[in-house]
């Protein structure tokens, strides 16, 4: 499953880039993130509680930033094990484009979910992933530019 979207953030690109590399900002914005610890400048370990309706599973995993091109973009990949619930992995290519004083954040994400949660929740995975991506980028926009609160204006599954 692929997700693409873009979002306007009312902040300069350097500031958006710094936030994208800030573990505290990421922890606040990743839906269900309980812990995010920086292991190296580009590696983080994370604990995320994923809730889909009646299901609730805790995923422990890692987040890695690669293909860094400050301040214009990077690739974020993550994977996690949810024990009996299954596994989840995904990646997002994020690039930032300056638009006057604001920044347009574009993303192209892929997500894969396997195991029991995928079997039982198959009909919900796409919708949930889209919702989570929207929540993440929405929260990210608010964290970087608190005065404006834009929702993810365009998120389309392909």
């Amino acid at each position: 499953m692929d997700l693409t979207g873009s979002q306007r953030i009312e902040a300069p690109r350097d500031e958006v880039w710094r936030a994208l590399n800030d573990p505290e900002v990421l922890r606040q914005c990743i839906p269900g993130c309980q812990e995010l610890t920086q292991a190296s400048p580009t590696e983080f370990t994370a604990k995320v509680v994923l809730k889909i309706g009646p299901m609730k599973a805790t995923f422990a995993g890692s987040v890695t930033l690669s293909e860094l091109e400050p301040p214009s973009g990077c690739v974020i990949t993550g994977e996690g094990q949810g024990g009996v619930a299954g596994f989840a992995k995904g990646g997002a290519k994020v690039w930032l484009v300056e638009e006057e004083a604001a920044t347009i954040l574009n993303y192209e994400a892929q997500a894969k979910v396997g195991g029991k949660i995928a079997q039982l929740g198959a009909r919900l995975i796409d919708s949930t992933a889209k919702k989570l991506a929207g929540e993440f980028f929405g929260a990210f926009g608010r964290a970087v530019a608190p005065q404006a609160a834009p929702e993810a204006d365009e998120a389309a599954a392909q």
Partner: protein
Amino acid sequence: MFPFTYHRPADLDAARGLVAANEEAKLLAGGQTLIATLKQRLAGPSDLVDLAGVPGLAGVSRGGDALVIGAMTRHADVAAAPLVREALPALAELAELIGDPAVRNRGTIGGSVANNDPSADYPAACLGLAATIVTDRRRIAAGDFFLGLFETALEPDEIILSVAFPVGGAAAYEKFPNPASRYAMAGSFVWRGEGAVRVAITGAGQEGVFRWSEAEAALAGDFTPRALEGLALDGDAMIADIHGSGAYRAHLAGVMTKRAVARIVGQG
């Protein structure tokens, strides 16, 4: 299952106290989604608070212009209730189409509405009939209640007491069930009253149940299946999964709506 503590409170205050005291506690109504999830170990609540022992939560009654269905009323009982069949036959038919006999004999309207599964049937009736969800602390209009995928306006410890459906007008529900689960691949609940039409679509939208306002506008002017020709939902906003693409569900929702309209016209 993971271990949990089972409670069967004898009144509403005790039930409320138990869920309010522990954020890892879950309310148990009919259990047709929750128990299956627990058996797969996909959730591990610390406590289950069973509402089966709380008196007064099950049953159908007529209160003024509304049909009031207690939260713990089973789908099979809604389908069979003479009061429902007489006042809102479309609702009785909808209840009869939910899941399989086991689900209909255990599952409850309150549980279905609180879960807000994007493919569940009752949310479509609630929106289509402009029902009111009555909880232990307030009354919530259906239009303000369903907030998205599995999300409702309920507080974590809020308990649904009943769902009140206004009586009047003509209604029909048509759904295309998944052949295995009987969940709606797309379902359309259409209601026609004095100068007003409501169309509620379930099973299709990524955000769960929704009103199809373009169809409502078209039908308000000309209440025939033909009025819906050329109208289409956005396939990109529909659920896409192994059972069907978004475009397929968008198309199905249109077909179900036409069928529901044709049935209401036929009843006329």
